[in-house]
């Protein structure tokens, strides 16, 4: 079996180097971080190790495990219910379950800790009703714990798994399930033994995204008074002012994630299935009345807890504390947020297409390398990444300034590191993993025969890509764009540090207020972020609905 690109030697060389170079460029901040960590002194490390580091590491591991398990439970079950059963309210739940993604995690953390805290409305009301006076009078879960943090973070991140699992379930060849039914398995058994394993690559990709996002997080976790490895990173950097130690710890975090990913990839190596004619007509499992009740409750609880409740709380706050004039003032800020997010989403999607198509269509041991190494940025905490950006681009800016001076021109100042270029680059480095993972799991659904069948009919490589692969990848491309757009809208630590003067985004705006206990005043901006994140989600759902509606049939 020949791969297309191998045909002409010249073309092979042409395609390869730019792609490798591009992925290496995206790796630069990671390399800068690793290099900065090399000069670390052992003093601080031994001190940390003897005191707090073991706890931090334990917390990190537990948090990662809990969040991944919870979000897989939330995401896979809801995706399965939506795609494979006749659950009531499916049309609404389909897109409702995506919405928690539009909520910034730190916002949800803030809202829920306030809600369920000892001094919050829930416990206060309970104490008033039952005449309890102090905490020893009753038992109530403490939300500011590892468990509480895990649940909240899983609530915000499970849509990743939900969306990728749902796409995988929808794109699967249903003939396989029919065959399984013919061979005597029940509908549910077929799901567990056929549909679920087939979707495993997609679920694994989403789970790795969830893991990286969880471990890189600082603000949310700090709010829950849970101390993880990122706490140590910030402590060493800002407290002990030891940048080398901070970078060393961040490198350790990344290595840990790297090994997890490698193990996970090894575990599913060799798994591949493709059929040439995919039957997408789903036979839906009929749920009994009690099953309907549990299924609906499960999905609705997720939607309410992950989105509807926080959103209502925000609306109430905005209603009480803001007015339309403030909304108008937020418009330029909103435009800034959108500007950066659109750039980040578009560029990461294009790069993801390049890397994944490269991996698919070329031979050679290292063909998946560009895609994999460009994905590491996701595991770097936002502020650390911002630092790496500055370390990378400030020297380049210096160089540009020197050249300008030599040529007798006016020094342009910090062209790259002092403008939104640095922010957008940071976002590409950080969010490449999302786009890569989404499009890669989408590409796996395309049968391999479609790679070279067009060539036998005389189509060139470009034609094959544009007329076959990219149209088939359309939904994955849009999902990838959407996920990166929403993430870029919500992102906080990197843009906070890198932004130039007089350039605010919605997230920096609300951060100013949140960090001073003024969330009520920031609620309007928060709603703005959520709504702007919602728009592409809803649009995407409409777009997909049209193509999807043709593919379901009810079981007679």
């Amino acid at each position, binding site marked *: 079996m020949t791969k297309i690109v191998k045909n002409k030697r010249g073309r092979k060389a042409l395609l390869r180097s730019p792609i490798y170079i591009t992925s290496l460029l995206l790796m630069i901040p990671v390399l800068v971080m690793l290099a900065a960590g090399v000069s670390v002194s052992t003093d601080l490390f031994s001190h940390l190790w003897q005191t707090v580091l073991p706890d931090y590491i334990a917390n990190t591991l537990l948090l990662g495990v809990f969040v991944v398990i919870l979000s897989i439970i939330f995401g896979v079950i809801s995706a399965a219910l939506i795609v494979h059963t006749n659950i009531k309210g499916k049309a609404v739940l389909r897109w409702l379950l995506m919405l928690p993604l539009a909520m910034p995690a730190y916002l949800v953390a803030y809202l829920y800790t306030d809600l369920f805290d000892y001094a919050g409305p829930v416990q206060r009301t309970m104490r008033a009703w039952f005449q309890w006076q*102090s905490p020893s009078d009753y038992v109530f879960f403490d939300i500011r714990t590892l468990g509480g943090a895990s649940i909240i973070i899983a609530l915000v991140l499970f849509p990743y798994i939900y969306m990728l699992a749902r796409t995988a379930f929808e794109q699967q060849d249903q003939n396989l399930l029919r065959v399984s039914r013919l061979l005597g398995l029940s509908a549910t058994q077929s799901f567990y033994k056929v549909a679920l394993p087939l979707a495993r690559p997609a679920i694994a990709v989403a789970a790795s995204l969830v893991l990286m996002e969880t471990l890189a997080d600082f603000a949310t976790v700090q709010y829950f008074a849970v*101390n993880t490895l990122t706490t140590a990173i910030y402590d060493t950097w800002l407290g002990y002012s030891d940048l080398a130690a901070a970078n060393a710890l961040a490198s350790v975090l990344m290595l840990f994630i790297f090994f997890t990913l490698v193990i996970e990839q090894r575990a599913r190596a060799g798994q591949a299935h493709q059929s040439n004619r995919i039957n997408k007509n789903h036979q839906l499992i009929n749920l009994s009345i009690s099953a309907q009740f549990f299924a609906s409750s499960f999905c609705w609880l997720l939607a309410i807890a992950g989105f509807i409740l926080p959103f209502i709380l925000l609306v109430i706050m905005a209603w009480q504390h803001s007015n339309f004039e403030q909304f108008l003032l937020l418009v330029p800020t909103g435009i800034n947020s959108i500007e950066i997010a659109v750039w980040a989403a578009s560029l990461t999607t294009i790069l993801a297409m390049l890397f994944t198509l490269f991996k698919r269509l070329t031979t050679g041991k290292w063909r998946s390398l560009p895609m994999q190494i460009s994905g590491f940025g996701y595991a770097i905490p936002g502020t650390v990444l*911002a630092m790496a950006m*500055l370390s990378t681009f*400030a020297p380049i800016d210096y160089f540009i300034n020197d050249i300008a001076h030599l040529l007798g021109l006016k020094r342009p100042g910090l*062209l790259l590191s*002092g*403008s939104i270029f640095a922010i957008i680059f940071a976002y590409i480095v950080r969010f490449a993993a999302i786009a890569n993972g989404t499009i890669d799991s989408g590409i796996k659904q395309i049968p391999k025969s479609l790679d070279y069948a067009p060539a036998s009919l005389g189509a060139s490589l470009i034609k094959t890509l544009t007329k076959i692969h990219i149209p088939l990848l359309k939904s994955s491309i849009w999902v990838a764009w959407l996920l990166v757009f929403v993430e870029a809208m919500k992102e906080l630590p990197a843009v906070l540090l890198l932004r130039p003067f007089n350039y605010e985004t919605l997230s920096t705006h609300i951060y100013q207020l949140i*960090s001073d206990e003024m969330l009520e005043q920031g609620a309007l901006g928060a709603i703005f972020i959520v709504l702007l994140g919602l728009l592409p989600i809803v649009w995407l759902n409409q777009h997909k609905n049209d193509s999807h509606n043709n593919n379901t049939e009810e079981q007679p």
Partner: protein
Amino acid sequence: MLQKLINFFSKTIISISLIITTFSASAIDEVNVYSYRQAFLVEPLFEQFTKQSGIKVNVVFAKKGMAERLAREGQYSPADILLTTDISRLIELRDRDLLQANNAEVLIDAIPSQYRSTDNTWFALTTRVRNIYSSKRLGDINISYEDLADSQYKGRICTRSGKHPYTVALVASMIAEHGETKTLAWLESFKANLARKPQGNDRGQVQAIHQNLCDISLGNSYYFGKMLKDKNQKVWADGVNINFPNQNNRGAHVNISGIGLAKHSPNLDNAKALMAFLVSKPAQQLYAETNMEYPVRPGVAPSKLVASWGDFKADTLSLETIAKNRKLALKLIDKARFDL
């Protein structure tokens, strides 16, 4: 496909040229501030300055990493002024050689020597006290920081994270007074007295007192005023007394918000004008009043509300000395596993 590529590249080129043009020289007079304080807290002050001088003030606010950014930007940094909320940030900036001296007489005259650096690289603008808030259920008490380790308060103290700069500064002052060993013992007993794991912020602790979760908390002075002004939080503040600790001995621990002149400030004259403005009597009054802090300039009275909390003796230990103990303080906090 080709069309799309062309579109993409032309947009890239246009955007890059737009970015470049934003860096061309602007005709307006301006000064650039990197601030650790939220912009809306300092805006009233800056508006006043612009009215008076016609110089526009640009502010970028970030809580972490501004020093790093400044260091990386180096000689091309657009920053003129650094505004901080804590002594440790100023010391860090000075130690990393990111500040330059401003020897203007008006600054030296306006600010007492313990509230500015010996080499005139940083200056305090306001002071704030690390108070101990006590529940009115306890009645009037005379409390010291050392009493936080006393067993009579077992299980009745709430505080924010031990790693927070305010806490670290307090521990640093304890080290300066009592030495390392005693401070570690104090930290461990303090931790044993906590009602819950350190969490939340200063106002959150007063909220917890209101809910009878604890009776004692640490908090900066200005939060008292902020709570009184907030309709939801007023009831918390009404339930506590604001105490100035250690009035029988060295005095209450004081921290500052301060200012420094950036080493490579591009708008040097404007920056110096801003600094001179900020230590002027009307600006001191406005700044302190807006944020309910104590003005650092002698002869300027704090706002009525702040004054109503009483006169007090402040710890006269030099802030530089306290800041020297910062890293050791962090080590002790880690040793005591205060947050865990």
